[in-house]
């Protein structure tokens, strides 16, 4: 597993909001070591039996948390992220959707300068099944196992996890990196971590049309990743020039097409799946194959 495990202590920023509160409850129910909530102005209250603090610093000093999951409104996300960084949080999982990308760029720069890690924004979160769920992923869909997954999409991550689980293939860790063009951790950093993770035997990379991150990841895989990687791209039949929901999900000027990405996957030794069920099938086959030299 990577990033998180059963010992990860997590605080929830925006714990008293509708979304923060409901997902905090679900994370606790899943078994995640949620230790506190943070909402400026709500310090001294409780949510789901846990203390709420006015500041991340206070929460971290009191609980020893190292990770924060952020549910604050989009225009407050930069401040919340910087506050967490300043308080020494090492991993930020930023669920918030609709964060201004210039704010994200500033947060990403601060995260780098501090040597911390950011997943998101606009992401479903991270799960190490059976141990720790951080974010809004539906825990019941996942199961522990040997497949590591990195995905740019939210619900599609669940769909593919479901296909894996239904096929009896559990997951080491699944990371939803989020669909925004400016974001924290990307494919390459996580591919490296899964490559180095003894609990992961096969990696699933879920991409979308738009941008060239998948093409770059494919080249990175050829050079650096010894484990087999299954690739999937959503938007194979998307018409060019139309924005398909995500800021990034667009084909424009002949760049970022599914064809280009799938070709890059093939050219760099990856295994290509065209439906979620195919992902599960390929991953299952590969789990039986010995690793590359």
């Amino acid at each position, binding site marked *: 597993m990577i990033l998180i495990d059963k010992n990860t202590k997590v605080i929830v920023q925006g714990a008293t909001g509708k979304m923060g509160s409901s997902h905090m409850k679900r994370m606790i129910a899943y078994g995640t070591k949620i230790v506190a909530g943070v909402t400026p102005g709500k310090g001294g209250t409780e949510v789901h039996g846990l203390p709420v603090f006015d500041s991340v610093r206070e929460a971290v000093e009191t609980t020893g948390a190292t990770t924060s999951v952020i549910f604050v409104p989009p225009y407050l996300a930069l401040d919340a992220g910087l506050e967490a960084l300043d308080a020494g949080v090492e991993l930020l999982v930023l669920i918030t959707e609709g964060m201004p990308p210039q704010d994200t760029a500033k947060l990403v*720069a601060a995260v780098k300068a501090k040597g911390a890690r950011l997943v998101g924004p606009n992401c*479903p979160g991270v799960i190490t099944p059976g141990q720790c769920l951080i974010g809004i992923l*539906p825990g019941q869909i996942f199961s522990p196992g040997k497949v590591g997954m990195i995905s740019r999409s939210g619900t599609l991550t669940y769909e593919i996890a479901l296909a894996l689980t239904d096929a009896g293939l559990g997951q080491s860790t699944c990371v939803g990196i989020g669909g925004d063009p400016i974001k924290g951790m990307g494919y390459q950093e996580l591919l490296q971590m899964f490559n180095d993770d003894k609990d992961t035997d096969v990696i699933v990379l879920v991409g979308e049309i738009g941008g060239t991150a998948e093409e770059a990841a494919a080249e990175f895989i050829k050079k650096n990743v010894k484990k087999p990687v299954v690739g999937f791209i959503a938007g194979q039949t998307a018409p060019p020039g139309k924005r398909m929901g995500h800021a990034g999900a667009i084909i424009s000027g002949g760049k970022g097409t599914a064809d280009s990405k799938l070709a890059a996957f093939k050219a760099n030794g990856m295994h290509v799946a065209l439906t979620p069920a195919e992902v599960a099938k390929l991953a299952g086959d590969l789990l039986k194959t010995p690793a590359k030299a």
Partner: protein
Amino acid sequence: MSSVAASTAVNGFTQEDRTLDLYEYEAKKIFSEGGITVPPSHRITKPEELAKVHFGFPVTLKVQVLSGGRGKAGGIQFANNLKEGKEKAAELLKMVIKGSKTESLLVEPKLNIHRELYLAVTLDRERGCPIFIASAEGGIEIESSDKVITMPIPNPYHPYVGRELARQLGFKGNLLVKVADVATKLYKIFESKDLDLAEINPLLVTEGEEVLALDGKITVNDDSIGRQRYFDGWQERHLLDVSERERRCKMIGLNLVELDGNIGILCNGAGLTMATMDMVKKFGGEPGNFLDVGGGSDTEKTLEALEIVNSNPDCDVMLLNILGGITACDEVAKALVSFIKKYPERTLVVRLRGNNQELAEKILAESGLKLIPDIETAVKAAVEAANKVSKKPVGAKA
């Protein structure tokens, strides 16, 4: 930095990428307010108004449209006198370029071009920061130029960055300072107005070493527009070239793309919607639309989305595929119950899983709607139903 990477960066944020693209005249107003020199200009919506233009002939007439490729389509014309101008204006005002209607014409004096540059600020998704993109060749498609420079912009910004850019473009002395000044002002506009793209193309250098923005493009970031009072009301004003259904979706925060088939798709999440669309095609169906209800939709929003898909006259079958993470399945179930009461004859294939699934199953069971838990089964069922063009419900009330 190669020009390929540069044009990739540009491509990540071309005008189609976001919804609030500004007209040339709007972009120039913002440039001017930010201290960047623009040519004198006059906007007209009728050929007669050309008589009121306060500068002399010859003039340039430019159609104001939101699509690209205006020049190639003949949307820029010159006129040597009022008579010629009125005739050409009348023609230009009727133009539709790539489906985009001409909103007005911008009239400017015909300028002598000594030298043209390209200058833009955008966000680079690879480097995760704002960048300058510039070329000592302007007036061209930036993707096809091999003289493109990109430069990451530090936070906070300081003017020496603009000077370094001007230097890398090959300028020296007085002109370096002037070009750098435009770059600095363009960045300030980009940052203070939360833009995705602030582009001057071409940036004109006259023989007298005046530097001015001859044409420009501004794209405002959708997510940030709520904190930019400057653009209050602009979004609605700019939704001219989309269908009434698309406009309705836009206003309530749904993402709709109209397609040609007869299977109306409604999913949560862009990735899942695209994957569902891909599977419909793969199994022989034709998607009638792409509709992403987004994360965390409640009963009301889901019902609105169902109504929108339903209102497409070409839609024979509706395929709802919701995998609830944020979205609570019981909220969706309530919407489905309401919908099916109102449209009992609709062919509706429902796949629903995830968050609060048990509650949802209970709610739907009471109303008699059948759930298909597996995506492939659901897609195949929808395709089969659509290919029969039967109005009899397949997934529901079977």
